[in-house]
């Protein structure tokens, strides 16, 4: 029983807007399965008293004061955009549905 099926990989690819051909799916799905199995070894050594962690550093509450710092100019902000219009980022219509 693979830890990730071909269908699940296809689903993830769709969510990530990555177009995969059948051949690519055939190729990638077993690879992902191996990667997950490898990472899964961590949970074998993790005892009940070891909480899952999402951060390498044992620190909390890193915060900043609520003060303003200078922004980019609109020109700077838009300088990396493939297209701009009316001082806004111009994007293709992506989803045929309401926001």
């Amino acid at each position: 029983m693979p830890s990730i099926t071909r269908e699940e990989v296809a689903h993830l690819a769709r969510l990530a807007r990555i177009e995969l051909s059948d051949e690519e799916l055939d190729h990638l799905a077993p690879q992902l399965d191996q990667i997950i199995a490898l990472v899964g070894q961590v949970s074998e050594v993790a005892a009940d008293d070891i909480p899952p962690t999402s951060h390498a550093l044992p620190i909390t509450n890193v915060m900043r004061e609520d003060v303003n710092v200078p922004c980019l100019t609109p020109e700077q902000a838009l300088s990396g955009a493939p297209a701009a219009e009316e001082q806004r980022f111009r994007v293709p219509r992506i989803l045929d549905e309401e926001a």
Partner: protein
Amino acid sequence: MTAEVFAIEDALAQYDPVLGLEVHVELNTKSKMFCGCPTEFGAPPNTQTCPVCLGLPGALPVVNARAVESAIKIGLALNCEIAEWCRFARKNYFYPDMPKNFQTSQYDEPIAFNGWTEVVVDGETYRIEIERAHMEEDTGKSTHVGGATGRIHGASHSLVDYNRAGIPLIEIVTKTIEVAPDKAAAVARAYVSMLRDLLLALDVSDVRMDQGSLRCDANVSLKPRGSKVLGTRTETKNVNSFRSVERAVTYEITRQAAVLASGGKVLQETRHWHEDTGVTTSGREKSDADDYRYFPEPDLVPVAPSREWVEELRATLPEAPSTRRVRLQEEWGFTDLEMRDVINGNALEPIVKTVELGVSPAAAKKWWLGELARAANESGKDLADLGVGPVDVSNVQQRVDKGELNDKLARQVFDGLLKGEGSIDEIIESRGLALVSDDSALIEAIDRAIAANPDVVEKVNSGKPAAAGALIGAVMKDLRGQGDAAKVRELLNAKLGI
């Protein structure tokens, strides 16, 4: 062919509505949630952005301390538990309103959870359970170009302004609300309205619904009367006034009832509220795109508010509305029934302000629930919009206390004020409402009353002083109610030697 919607009475006769409300509040912090960009409303497009809120490679977010503080205050005001330790999570989706391709939010570790609050509708108190209040960031604003209606349908492309992207948001989610069916929509409205007052009192948000700083999504489902099985729910977006909360919920109840009664199925979908036409229309069905693949945000460390900080913030909270009602009732010495009338009549705030001006609570209640409530009813206005305020009530009552007016004359003064006949003095002058307290005028009237009622005088003289009441009545009638009753009694008693 069945009707597209039911009459609300017919819908409520067969189905019990089950509601859930999600309210998004934009905080009034100076800077964004994770960067120092300003949060001004209405600034020119893309003038309030930086590498962090544009999601540029290598930029690192840092949490705004005041936003966390506001989140905790909101949680405490809603009687929530405050997490000892919680994290942010990435909500992944592909839509250009977030340049990062994810929204930084909280998932299964909200900062506040398991709370409750209360709203009052028609004198009844309804308890609303709060599931959670979590921190997240607002999205950018898209304008769709080329479509006939400015909507995305038929649009050729979209333009995005990221000024709003990253402004701190608190999402407040209720547990399911099941109340008397005919009260459901009104309770929903009262809840959002109460939240607005609460957030204003906490000073954590501008709470401008017209500017989108308070936004409500209403989840509605129906269950057939007597059934325990929850129906399929819809989520109505874009409900942006108190009145539309009530209207949108009512509309969804009538629409879903018609669908179910005709044997159809309610689709689990997002729906859009249209303020102008008063209907909701189908948005999109739940789909693949709702698989957000949440995972803990690796660029932010956990938030672990110390209990000391939480208690410090708790100490700054304004008095809860329910506590305040209890306190005021005690201070004013009102019975439960009297207090209920006050709440019912929306007279609480006017009475508070009137009492602050030195009027006794009983007198303030008498005018606000009597003369003024009647006038509000007749004109279909709110008490607050009558044009007669606490200062007027205080001025009139001061004249009553000084003996210049009695209650009957005071009522006429209010009538004159409501009809816009000028100032209190002008009305007293033009309507001839001054109380007669001039001794000679009173003594003349007393003499007339004694002369006209020898039998009563006889009774008083034979040892029944209580009979003198009839003479006072006669004097007051003679003076057309404009006599100073206390003075009349004093002079009459002297005259009769009692």
